[in-house]
C-alpha cells in the first residue's frame, strides 16, 4: 500500500519535476520540431507519391 501522506502521481514529486524540466528546457521548441520533422518529411513524400500516381 502507498502511504496517503505521499502525493501520488500525477502530482508526485517526480511528476512535478519532469513537467518543470520540460517547461524550463531552453531548447523546448527545437525538441518539438525535431520530433515532428520526420513525420513532416514522410507526409511530403506521400503527397508526392499521390501526384506521381495520378495517371499510371
Amino acid at each position, binding site marked *: 500500500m502507498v502511504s496517503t501522506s505521499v502525493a501520488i502521481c500525477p502530482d508526485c514529486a517526480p511528476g512535478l519535476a519532469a513537467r518543470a524540466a520540460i517547461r524550463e528546457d531552453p531548447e523546448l521548441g527545437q*525538441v518539438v520540431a*525535431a520530433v515532428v520533422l520526420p513525420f513532416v518529411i514522410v507526409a511530403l513524400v506521400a503527397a508526392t507519391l499521390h501526384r506521381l*500516381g495520378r495517371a*499510371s
Partner: protein
Amino acid sequence: MTKTSTGRAHVGPLVSAGTVMGVGLGGFVDGIVLHQLLQWHNMLSSKIPPVDLVTMKTNMVWDGLFHCLTWIMTVVGLGLLWRAAGRADVPWSGRVFVGALLLGWGLFNFVEGVIDHHILGLHHVHPGSGELAWDLGFLASGVLLIVVGGLMIRRGGVA
C-alpha cells in the same frame, strides 16, 4: 482489375493512403517494441538519459508526443483509404495497398533514422557499444522495406 470511368487508372490515392498508414503503423512498432517492450531507447534518451524516475517520466512525455504523431498519421491514412475506396478510377489492389504499407514503414525507418539517430542524435536504436551498427541496421531495414514495398506496388499496379 481496374475500376475506371474515364479509362485511366489512378493508383496515387491508394498508394498515398497505404504509405501514410504505413508510416503511422511503423512508428507504432518502433514505439511499442523498442521504447516500451524492450526499453532500448526513448525519444530523447541521448539528450536526457533515463536513469531515474524524473528523467524517465520526461522521456515518457516525449514518447507520448511521438505516439500522438503516429496515431495522427494512422488516422489520416485511414481517411485517405476511405476516400480512395469511393473513387471509381482507383484500382482496388491488395498487393498495391500492402506494398504501400511497407513503403511507408520503410520511409519512416529511413527518415526517422537519418534525422533522429544520425543528424540530431536524439537517441540511438541500442545505445552503448555497437550503437552505430544498430543504427545502420535500422536504416537498412528501412531501405529493404522501401524496395519490397515499391516492387509490390509496381507488380500490383495497372501497368
